[in-house]
């Protein structure tokens, strides 16, 4: 019984990891790729770890596997936030079909360099009353 449950968890976890990696490979800009790793990737690795916990049948091993999963759940959002912030300050290019950036013009003093389009939009907004 636990073997069948473990097999299902294992295959679905591996499937989510594969989907997340395909997202990293195929999605058009950094922030969308981040969307794939943080959610699908964490879920996939977590399902595989839960499968290891279910299959082992040993409480000590199960606790260890679930602990790794909890650690991933805690760290993935933090790592994604820190990296996303750094990338936005670094002016990582957005997808060319992005039509709305809520943060545009709000972080110009901490952002690095000044690509023309973004800088022009910010000054135009500041000059018009």
């Amino acid at each position: 019984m636990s073997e069948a449950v473990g097999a299902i968890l294992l295959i679905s976890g591996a499937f989510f990891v594969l989907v997340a990696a395909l997202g990293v490979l195929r999605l058009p800009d950094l922030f969308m790729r981040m969307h794939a790793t943080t959610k699908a990737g964490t879920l996939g690795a977590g399902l595989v770890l839960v499968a290891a916990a279910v299959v082992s049948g040993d409480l000590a091993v199960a606790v260890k596997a679930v602990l790794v999963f909890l650690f991933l759940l805690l760290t993935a959002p933090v790592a994604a936030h820190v990296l996303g912030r750094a990338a936005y300050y670094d002016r990582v290019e957005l997808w060319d079909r992005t039509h709305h950036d809520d943060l545009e013009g709000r972080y110009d003093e901490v952002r690095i360099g000044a690509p023309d389009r973004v800088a022009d939009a910010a000054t135009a907004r500041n000059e018009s009353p």
Partner: protein
Amino acid sequence: MSLLDGPTSLLQVAAYIAFAATTLAFIASFVRVVVGPSLADRVLALDMMGLVSVSLIATYAIAADQALFLDAALALALIGFLGTVAFARFIELRRRSSHE
């Protein structure tokens, strides 16, 4: 009984399928590390490779029935997190300090 003899139970069949899927995921993430284009993309893909490695190690722990490998998964998850945070700090600070 060795893993090289092929799958001997339902669980091992599942583990072999999972091996194939995670290996493909590993390759896809690695392509993103190579093509970039920005440093942040590479760091993100490396983070993903760490995650894939954790699942690969957990799958191997299941297939080989060796719970000890989970310790390696824990260590790798820790290192992956610290590496990502350190790289993010680096991205944020490297060019700002050279501008001032």
